[in-house]
Structure formats: structure tokens, C-alpha cells
């Protein structure tokens, strides 16, 4: 039920709508729940609505943590 997926905003449309793309698959969604969207942003898409923006900096940080933990694991 809480299925949601990151999608990239490729076009901002009137009435708080946007076209998003997911590896070349595109769909028109509502962005009424998210402020200040720009083309290129990634949003978490749920039942046709953008729920939130994805924070690229945090994403990189999380991946970094993951790699560190894995490296530690490999070492262990």
C-alpha cells in the first residue's frame, strides 16, 4: 500500500502537475504536496502524487555509510 518509487521531474505542468520519468517511462503526476520543485529533482511517487523531494546530498551520505559498513564487514 505504501509502495512509492523515486522519479525524476522532467516537466512542470499547470495546476500543480508535473511529468516525471523513471528510466524513460514517463507519467503525469500531481505535485500539490511538494513545494519548490525544479526540473531534474527526484520525488518519491505514491499513488499518482509526489510525496517528497529526494535529498541528493543525504542520498550520497547514506551510500557512503553503506559502503563503509560493507567495507568494515569485508574486513571482518
Amino acid at each position, binding site marked *: *500500500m505504501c509502495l*512509492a518509487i*523515486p522519479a525524476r521531474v522532467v516537466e512542470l505542468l499547470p495546476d500543480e502537475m508535473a511529468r516525471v520519468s523513471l528510466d524513460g517511462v514517463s507519467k503525469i503526476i500531481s505535485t500539490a504536496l511538494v513545494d519548490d520543485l525544479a526540473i531534474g529533482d527526484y520525488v518519491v511517487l505514491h*499513488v499518482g502524487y509526489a510525496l517528497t523531494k529526494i535529498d541528493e546530498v543525504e542520498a550520497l551520505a547514506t551510500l557512503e555509510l553503506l559502503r563503509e559498513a560493507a567495507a568494515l564487514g569485508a574486513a571482518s
Partner: protein
Amino acid sequence: MKHVDEYRDGELARGIARRITAEAQPERDYRFMEFCGGHTHAISRYGVEDLLPENIRMIHGPGCPVCVLPMGRIDDAIKLAARPEVTLCTYADLMRVPASGGTSLMKAKADGADIRMVYSTLDAIAIAEKEPDREVVFFAIGFETTTPPTALAIRLAQKKRLRNFSIFCNHVITPAAMQAILETNEGVAIEGFVGPAHVSTVIGMSPYRRFATDYHKPVVIAGFEPLDVIQAVLMLVRQINEGRSDIENQYRRAVTETGNGRAIDEMAEIFELRESFEWRGLGEIPRSALRLREKYAQFDAEQRFGVVTSPARDNPACECGAILRGAKRPQDCKLFGTACTPETPMGSCMVSSEGSCAAHWAYGRFRQLERRKAS
């Protein structure tokens, strides 16, 4: 897929799993509940349990809105759909959930009720606009993730002056259910939570504080990809080992401390708390669900059609309730795999792809066999 594939890397996963094995104290067991069905699904689909050491046990929580909806509410929806003037719009997830007397929305549809599967509340609004002679009722269910889209649909219906659109509201509150689980002393003690992913994008981290302060349980909010889950497990192991009980955020890329203010405001505008609401398996939980505010009464299908929920009894042999509380596992149910299969579900946990029984059926059965063989 960016922001997806990175979190499905088996190499990294094995590395972290080794780290978990290294850090977990071999002499003790760790019992974590992943609250969300989304986590349950990821764990099963990717075989995450195969990577974790034996002494880390994941307990599937009640975080599947389909699973926790009491049967009486499905009965209500079927009764609504059976009204000749009503077109019931629903997410497909609900179609096969068993209702009283062996029926379901799927069977009610086959019997002639006008039931349409929709992908989004926007589709339900479009139907109401296109078919002004039909009473379009949207069967609204879900946690805080799914509630803002319902709120926005009502806003839109109001703006479009639709007189034939209403919602049958079954939205429920995640923290209330987590609390109810902690207050049940039956079954396995839970030492920490893998906390909700997308619910938290909306509500943020603060609603979980009390689990740390009042119940001393660590919560790690985590994304729904398998690496997210594994990392959250590592973070939980560390908290336990260090004697901490903090609210941590593994899913920083999408979840902030305060959540989505706009979504929260939208929900607050349209909905208010019910005094109490029944959850399958957990019973009545105070202040755990939403209803429409009086000023939106015209959009409330319960008022519009005078819905009075009758108590409905689940199949007595179905262990869904205990499973949802984390007290039993699917393989503990006598009906599992015999009378109860995805084609002939006896309980809601066998229906939703996020349900524990369905997940175990679809992804986990062989593991049990292998263990049996091994023992």
C-alpha cells in the same frame, strides 16, 4: 533506476551482513519488528533473511493497511457497492480481501456491483466528473502516506463542485498502532523497530519520540529497499549493544525531522481523529484513525449513505490477528497452504502482497522446508 538500484546491491548487502554478524553478540538473540508491510515485502522478495545471522529475528508488524482493516469495513464497502446508484472506486489491493460469508469485492464485482480499480484518487475524481449520474465512492484506506492524496482529492472535488463524489474513510495512524503493539504483552518481546519509510516522509521523526522515551525501544526509520533494511538492522544492533534507544533515520534522503508540512496541513484541514477504531488483530485502538471533519460531511460516504458497521467475525482458525501483533508466524497457522492460499485466502494477510502470510507463501516457504530438512 537512480535512487533504487544502488540500494539493491547484493555485494554491499553481504558486506553489511558480515558486519552485522561481527557486531551481533553471539550469545543473545535480537528481535526486531519491521512495522511496515513494505519492509516485509522487501525482506521476502530479496531474501534478506538469508543474509542475516541466525540470532537476528525479524518480526513482521501490522503495517499493512489492507491487513489491519477489520472485516466489517469490507462488508460496508461491499454494501455500498451493491447500491445501484453507487460506483465504488478502490485500490486493487483490496479486491480479494475476504469479507463475511466468503465474499470479497472481486466476487461482488462478478455478482454485478459496479466496482472499479483505480491507481490514484485522481482517477476516481475523473470518473465522478465523467459520469455525473453515478454516486462515486472512493474506498479510502492507508496510513499517513496515502492519506494526503485522499485529502487532496476532496479539495479537488470541492473545487470542481462535484456533488456525486464521496469517500469511505478508513485512514489509520501509524504511531498509534506501534504503541498498541508495545502495550500488548502477549508473544515475543520486541527490542526495536525498523520504522516506517514513506509514512515518515509525511509525518517526520518526532511522532516516534515517545517509543524511545516512554518505552525505551530504539526505532530506525528505513527505506524500502533491501540495503535500507539491512543497514537499519545494523543500526538497531548497534543501539542495543550500546544500550541506547534513539530515533534514528536511515532514510535521510526522503525523511526529515518534521516531515511534509504541506501534507500534514492538508490532512489536518480535512480530517479529524476518531475516538477509537478497530484494527484487525489489535482490537479497538483509541485515537488511531481519521474521519472527515463536519464541514466536509457532504464528501463523507458514511454520513451520505448512513453506513453502520456491523461486527464481523474473522474465520476463527485464521491467525492473522496474532500474526499482526507479532505473536505468531504464518507457519503457525493450521490453514496456511492448505485451506488458505493466495487463490483462496481465509484472511487478509494472505491477500496483500505486504501481508505476512502472502509474503511467506510467495517467497518464504522453501526456507522453512530447508530448515526442516537441515534439522
